[in-house]
């Protein structure tokens, strides 16, 4: 029963990731895509730790999850700071038409 519950919740979170992926693919602006990627990253942390609990090896998987949290945060901050410069999005819009 416990492992079935964990598996079900991991699959449910993966389905939510699929829903968020829609926003990453079809987001009207770049900022929408960044939000979608950030959301997927947070969900992935939860899925990694759930997988560790399923396999009974949390102590290994938790380090991976910690690293993933760090990379997700820094990557999102870097993208946000880059697109914060005024005009980057307008230049892109002109370039792509």
């Amino acid at each position, binding site marked *: 029963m*416990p492992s079935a*519950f*964990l598996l079900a*919740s991991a699959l*449910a*979170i993966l389905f*939510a*990731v699929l*829903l*968020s992926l*829609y*926003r990453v693919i079809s987001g*009207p*602006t770049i*900022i*929408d895509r*960044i*939000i*979608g990627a*950030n*959301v997927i990253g*947070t*969900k992935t*942390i*939860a899925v990694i*730790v*759930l997988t560790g*609990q399923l396999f009974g090896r*949390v*102590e290994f998987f*938790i*380090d991976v*999850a*910690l690293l993933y*949290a*760090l990379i*997700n*945060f820094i990557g*999102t*901050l870097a993208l*946000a*700071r880059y*697109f*914060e*410069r*005024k005009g*980057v*999005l*307008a230049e892109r819009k002109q370039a792509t038409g």
Partner: protein
Amino acid sequence: MTSLGFGLIACGVFFFFTGAIGLIRFPDLYTRMHAAGKCDTLGGFLVLTGLACLGGLTLASLKIVMVALFVLITSPTATHAIARAAKRNDIAWWTRGDQR
């Protein structure tokens, strides 16, 4: 302790789902950010805390709690940075009557 962990994980999955539905249903960027930022922060925190409850009092669960606190701090920060980027780029918001 085990049932508490299961309850917390179920609540976290519910919040993840709500956030994902809001992310695809809301009309403009700022409302999507409203759904995604808060639901994701709380969902991640609840799922990780529930898993720490399942594991009992070990070093691994202490690390899980640390990751949960990290998510609790960094997720709003990232959302705030993204919101500022959107504001500086003058992205228009949705008003009633606009095309969805």
